[in-house]
């Protein structure tokens, strides 16, 4: 979306870290600020035609859902971004060496359990996990934290208890299954994962700038970066929400195996915040409890907006392996816990 001129400049800056030639700065006539200003003027001028454009009921519902996903996620994004900036700037690297067991295989469950105390939904934990890896935490442990934190924190488990009145075992099964998936994926990463799959953006300013300036730089960068990918995810989720009529799903609920797969895929597509998904699962009453448990285990770990954000923060090579692996493990573990506990 940025101007071709800016895009053309980026690689040259990446390649030679030296100062750019003075010519390139003085030559730039139309910068991004001018583009933004022009865009805003156009938007205000064409406000009415734009509003008319979204006046059809389906498009209007799409816009409402899109905006509401972003409004709902914004506080969690801001919290996650602020916390990850604190980790990136103020928490010394040595802290993590002391706080986590030095053996990676032990650090994984510890990091997974640490997710219990951190309230928040999945949008916040992606930048936090990125920050942890940047600060030298072993990726396997950071990934276990990434998966566990949104699924097993007290707010989410309380919401699950409320959503399934008289069935506290649902919350127990959800917490245990999610923790097991997080730890398994962490260990799987230790055995099979390659650290070069993770491509964290190069951020030298975090070490060179004064602390507070670095803090605000990190906040700015993460909001624009993770936030931008959140917008993509919200748009995808709103589309699914409007396009897939519920009546289609009902016809699939009768088959035990099919219903598990349908709800697992639905969890990925709907991308509902982990704090709300229990209520949605409760309302899908025509589906079996086991399939709804799978919905609750998969949702906070793999969904469209998470895949989009993970692609942005960790790189495409990472997301294309991590998301499918997590999906398969989450479906298997969720089903197993559902069969045993429910």
């Amino acid at each position, binding site marked *: *979306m*940025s101007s071709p001129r800016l*895009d053309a*400049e*980026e690689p040259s*800056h990446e390649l030679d870290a030296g*100062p*750019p030639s003075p010519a390139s700065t003085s030559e730039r006539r139309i*910068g991004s*600020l001018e583009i*933004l200003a022009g865009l805003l003027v156009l*938007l*205000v001028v064409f*406000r009415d035609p*734009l*509003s008319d454009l979204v006046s059809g*009921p389906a498009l*209007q519902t799409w816009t*409402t*859902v*899109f*905006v509401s*996903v972003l*409004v*709902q996620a914004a*506080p969690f*994004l801001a919290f996650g971004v*602020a916390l990850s900036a604190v980790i990136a700037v103020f928490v010394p690297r040595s802290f993590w060496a002391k706080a986590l067991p030095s053996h990676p295989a032990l650090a994984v469950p510890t990091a997974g359990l640490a997710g219990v105390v951190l309230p928040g939904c999945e949008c916040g934990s992606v930048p936090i996990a990125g920050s942890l890896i940047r600060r030298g935490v072993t990726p396997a442990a950071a990934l276990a934290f990434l998966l566990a934190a949104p699924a097993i924190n007290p707010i989410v488990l309380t919401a699950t208890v409320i959503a399934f*009145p008289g069935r506290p075992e649902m919350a127990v099964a959800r917490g245990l299954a999610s923790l097991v998936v997080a730890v398994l994926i962490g260990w799987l990463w230790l055995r099979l994962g390659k650290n070069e799959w993770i491509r964290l*953006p190069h951020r*030298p*300013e975090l070490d060179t700038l004064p602390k507070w*300036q670095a803090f*605000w*730089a990190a*906040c*700015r*960068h993460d*909001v*624009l970066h993770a*936030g*931008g*990918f959140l*917008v*993509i995810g919200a*748009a995808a*989720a*709103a589309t699914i*929400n409007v396009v897939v*009529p*519920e*009546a289609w799903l*009902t016809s699939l609920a009768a088959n035990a195996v099919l219903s598990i797969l349908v709800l697992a895929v639905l969890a990925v597509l709907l991308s509902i*915040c982990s704090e*709300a998904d229990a*209520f*949605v699962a409760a*309302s899908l*009453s*025509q589906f079996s409890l086991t399939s709804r448990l799978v919905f609750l285990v998969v949702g906070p770990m793999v969904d469209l907006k998470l895949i989009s954000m993970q692609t942005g923060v960790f790189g495409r090579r990472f997301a294309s392996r991590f998301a499918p692996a997590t999906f398969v493990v989450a479906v298997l573990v969720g089903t197993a816990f559902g069969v045993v506990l429910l």
Partner: protein
Amino acid sequence: MNKLTQGVVLLLFGGAILRASVTDLYLRYVKEGLRPFLIATGLLLVTAAIMTLWYSFRETPSDEDDHGHEHHGPSVGWLLILPVLGLLLVAPPALGSYAANQAGSVVAEPVGGSDYPALPAGDPVELSLVDYASRALFDAGKSLGGREISLTGFITVAPDGSPMLARMVLSCCAADGRPIKIGLDGRTPIDVPADTWVQLTGVYTARTAKDPVNNVDVAYFDVRTWQEIPEPKQPYA
């Protein structure tokens, strides 16, 4: 995207959230309880924007050259203009009859055991749609006996063309909004377009039907009088 532009985009995004949360606009999209967090988020974003602008104005050209390559922020950040556009210019309405027709009615679960508390005072007594449906379906209307009841919601048209009263129930945000629907008997509002907000008074009726979308029982309401009302401040149940 240079630093200055990033600052302006952040300012717009934070400002849009702040504006939505200090007015009642946010109630169209999320629950009331999120308001303090939204205000805090807006303030954090606006502060981050101001600090960005401040540092980039204070920076001398030689500073810029030192770390020039981080001037181009993530291009994906441009997309944050979309929610700003949505909140400041379009401000889409709360979910209405289109969403209500697409999803199945919520199951009005019986509230803890079978004993329903007696209805509050008032004639007619005001009930939420969920409360009415729960008492009508799981208590066979016993606790509703003989009282005149007032319900508030918007009109939605069932597939067979008959009007129904509906309200969207949110558990978190509009993305998980699901309708509670009540069938209408008696002097039903005629010639009222879908999405019109109405206040109905009437009495319990034993009639029920199935929601065609998810086969859930839907309670009916025997309407005596009705009037159009403006959309309430809190459109969701």
